[in-house]
């Protein structure tokens, strides 16, 4: 009798607990990170007798949350990967939009510039055509600098995001350390029973940290959870959290490093928002800035070289139309010497788009690639007559370096910000070929054409007389003897002259600088066709092609990032779905449990009632 009552009341208590837990599940059906809980029931061992063991009811062994460590670990990895690619693709898409949108891209202003040069070729002396070419150059330079400032803005946005994400990580690891302490206490308080809801909170926090930065975790015997960065720096050990920090990089080049105990660990970090920010900076923004800088330097150098190959409206050799951008050098903050570097872009065709670390060992300079660390050939001594030369730049040194001093040399990263008009005077545009040729009166042959091959030749516009001593021999300025056969070009001082008609002894031609106010349009034509002239990569890529590749490279990165984002969001959804399938609350299931446990509770109550009835019948029997 007493057994039945005890059994019944144990069941009542157990099902009360079960109903409580089911209600808790229902209540938390929409709580993020909540794991459904289950009451573990065990049968009470009864008292043994000769007729066997008769059960004594039910016990609540424990209330467990249902989780799968493997599934959680998968979710943690996919959270990290998703947050990384989400951040990365966000920047890739921004640059793609910048480079694609006709309002911000370079393709329209670049084409307008060449169109304006063509219009000038149609009317070489028209001041309207000159003004419009100058205007087009202004627009082009403006667009280039605007793009650069957008990219710079993104780079400083990345710095800000790094700072704020690091702060979030620090808050989270601190909270996690506190939770560790609470969990250890709670667990020891009730004989190792799991504090389910605290554990859920901690799991939730781990997922959040994983979204910020790639981590690994290790569960300790006392119930605390240690958290490390993917490369092994301890963020949380037991109830102790170590904060990450941010600091300017070793050269103060404007990029922030993430630090651990004051030492930069930027290169070791991967995954999460921080990994995405760092990858975006390295793979998207820096290459875009370098490509843009290369293009800007290429445009300036090509336009200036072409202008120098002609004469302007006043009859002078063309000067610079655009300011030639220069590279930048950052001294390491640890440098002991006071050496400075000025970096000039000397050979656009040799620019690589990379950055270099240039070191002084006490006697000489050496260089390595800033990204890969590979050694780079360096020549020259650093004087203005013999500058240090590498990757298309010429570096002139100032001050004195000491052994161990280092510099970060960025040839193109900020070059685009310097592109601007060098002159506001439209008459300085050299539309005319620098030299003109005339046949002496009485010649039997005439001038077919004269073209400038080398605009940089110092003697280009020096007056030259070509005199034929016979049909196959000519003299230059009355001396020498040069062979000629019909159709040959006569090349002197960077120009080449072709003749028409048949040459006779005594024919003479004079070549001299084109005069002022000339209608010659040879140089304007060359300017209009500059876009297709190969300049970059050792003469493989033209300005137009470089502009195209600026767009397509950004587009390809954005496309790949977009695809990776889709893939990663599917992976993340799968991991979430797996977690939900293990730990999530299904209300139908809970409803069924509710019915089940209610019925069990009613049945247990019935057991009490039955015990009561039995007891009553016994009383009646004894009474009667």
């Amino acid at each position, binding site marked *: 009798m007493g057994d039945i009552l005890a059994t019944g009341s144990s069941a009542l208590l157990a099902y009360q607990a079960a109903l409580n837990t089911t209600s808790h599940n229902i209540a938390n059906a*929409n709580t993020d990170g909540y794991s459904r809980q289950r009451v573990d029931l065990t049968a009470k061992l009864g008292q043994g007798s000769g007729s066997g063991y008769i059960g004594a009811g039910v016990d609540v062994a424990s209330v467990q949350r249902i989780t799968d460590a493997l599934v959680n670990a998968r979710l943690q990895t996919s959270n990290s990967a998703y947050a990384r690619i989400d951040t990365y693709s966000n920047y890739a*898409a921004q640059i*793609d*939009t910048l*480079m*694609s949108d006709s309002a911000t891209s370079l*393709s329209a202003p670049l*084409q307008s510039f*060449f*169109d304006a040069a*063509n*219009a000038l*070729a*149609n*009317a*070489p*002396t028209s001041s309207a055509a000159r003004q419009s070419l100058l205007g087009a150059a202004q627009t082009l330079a403006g667009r280039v600098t605007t793009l650069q400032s957008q990219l710079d803005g993104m780079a400083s946005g990345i710095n800000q995001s790094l700072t704020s994400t690091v702060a979030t990580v620090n808050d989270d690891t601190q909270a996690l350390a506190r939770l560790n302490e609470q969990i250890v206490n709670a667990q020891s308080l009730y004989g190792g029973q799991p504090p389910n809801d605290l554990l859920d909170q901690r799991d939730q926090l781990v997922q959040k940290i994983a979204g910020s930065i790639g981590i690994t975790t290790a569960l300790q015997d006392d119930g605390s959870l240690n958290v490390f960065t993917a490369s092994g720096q301890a963020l949380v050990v037991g109830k102790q959290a170590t904060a990450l920090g941010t600091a300017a990089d070793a050269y103060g080049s404007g990029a922030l490093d993430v630090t651990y105990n004051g030492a930069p660990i930027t290169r070791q970090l991967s995954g999460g928002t921080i990994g995405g920010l760092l990858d975006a900076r390295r793979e998207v923004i820096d290459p875009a800035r370098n490509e843009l800088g290369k293009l800007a330097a290429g445009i300036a150098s090509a336009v200036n070289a072409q202008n120098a190959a002609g004469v302007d409206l006043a009859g002078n050799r063309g000067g610079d139309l655009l300011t030639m951008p220069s590279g930048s050098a950052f001294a390491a903050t640890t440098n002991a010497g006071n050496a400075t570097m000025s970096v000039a872009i000397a050979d656009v065709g040799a620019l690589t788009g990379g950055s270099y670390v240039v070191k002084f060992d006490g006697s000489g300079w050496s260089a390595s690639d800033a990204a890969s660390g590979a050694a780079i050939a360096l020549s020259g001594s650093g004087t203005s007559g013999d500058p240090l030369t590498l990757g298309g730049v010429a570096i002139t040194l100032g001050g004195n370096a000491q052994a161990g001093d280092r510099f970060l040399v960025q040839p193109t990263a900020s070059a685009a910000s310097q592109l601007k008009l060098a002159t506001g005077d439209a008459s300085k545009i050299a539309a*005319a*070929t620098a030299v*003109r*040729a*005339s046949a002496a*009166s*009485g010649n039997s042959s*005439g*001038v077919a*054409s004269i073209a400038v091959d080398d605009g940089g030749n110092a003697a280009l516009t020096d007056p030259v007389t070509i005199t034929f001593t016979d049909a196959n021999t000519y003299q230059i300025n009355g001396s020498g003897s040069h062979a000629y056969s019909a159709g040959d070009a006569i090349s002197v001082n960077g120009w080449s002259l072709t003749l028409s008609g048949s040459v006779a002894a005594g024919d003479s031609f004079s070549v001299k600088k*084109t*005069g002022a*106010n*000339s*209608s*010659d*349009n040879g140089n304007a*034509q060359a300017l*209009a066709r500059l876009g297709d002239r190969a300049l970059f990569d050792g003469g493989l890529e033209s300005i137009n092609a470089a502009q*195209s*590749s600026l*767009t*397509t490279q*950004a*587009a*390809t990165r*954005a*496309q790949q990032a*977009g695809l990776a984002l889709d893939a990663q969001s599917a992976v993340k*959804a799968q991991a979430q*779905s797996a977690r*939900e*399938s293990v*730990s*999530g*609350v*299904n*209300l*139908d*299931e809970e*409803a*069924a449990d*509710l019915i089940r446990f209610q019925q069990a509770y009613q049945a247990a109550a019935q057991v009490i009632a039955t015990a009561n009835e039995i007891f009553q019948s016994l009383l009646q029997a004894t009474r009667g």
Partner: protein
Amino acid sequence: MTMRISTAWRYEQGVTQMMRQQQKIAATQNQLSTNRKWQTAADDPAGWSQAQNYDRLVAQTAQYTSAAQTAQQRLQLGEDTIASGIGLLQHVRELVVEANTATQSADTRKTIAAELGSVREQLMALANTGDGQGRYLFGGADDGSAPFAWNGGSADYRGDQTTVSAQIGSERTVAQNDPGSRVFMNLKTGNGTFAVSAASSNTGSAAIGSATLVDADAWDGGSYTLRFTAADQYEIVDASNNVLQSGSAGDGATITFRGASLTLSGTAAAGDSFAIAPSASQDMFAMIDQLAKLLTQPQDSAAQRAQVQTALQQGLGTLQSAEDRLGDVRSGIGIRLNAIDDALDVAAAQSEHATAAASTLRDTDYADAVGKLQLQMTTLQAAQQVYTKVQGLSLFDYLR
């Protein structure tokens, strides 16, 4: 074991599905409303760069077209001007022929000479024609001021010899001007190889009518003198006074030496001589001026008339060269105008093809996009209906 679908996850998935469909619809809507398949280059980097190359080709053909049109206008102006010049030279020939008839008196010849003077001025005006843009057609590249000026005896050319070209195709240029030096200057006098002049001391009535080069290979470019030792006896001496050939020649006789053929009219007097020298250079204006001057020379005696005749025949030869020159320039312009027409056709066709190619790459395929939109809308509708139906299912509804 069946998989547990958590209730919160089911809601979230339903909403995610609808959002994804809405995103697709927005993208299709964008394609339809902008007529652009791509929103950014990332939608198809390779296609984008291809389309950009086609755009560049279109822009380039537009450049060729504008250069061709500019050159066309200039060349047409040049052609008109040269055509007028040819007319003027014809008028010169008519005037000279008219002046050379026996009925003319010294006075009427003087009038004709004056008219020739005015023709010369008209030709000078043509040579200094502007292009309507403040520049001169025949100044070469140094065309900012009038290229020709009359100095009293001949013309000074102040332009240069530069031919300004126009880029009318990727590898095709055309000259859009003819420097005046090549149009109006440097005519070869006489028949273009040599010129004949009568000595001013000639007393006979002999004149050289036609002087032609019959064998170019035999001509050595030297200077010779035809002189008469008697009325019908001639000898030809070279510059060093060596007698080359001699013989008898009367009225109408033809003397041939070193590939040159001279026809005699009238009768020479002993001692008369004619110089045969390589052609000199002369500009068109000086040529007309000399013809005019010739007409004002006295023609009272037979000897005087013979002087004028010899010179006139030579002048007419130079006039012929001038007419040929302008004819050549004109046909050269015609050839270039044809080339420009052709280049314009090529540019138009190229531009059309490139535009079409870029459009095929980049523009929305409306049939496709509209079909896609229909499908996406249907899918969204289905997702919405499924959501409302499925979310209504709950066991709690039956717990009453």
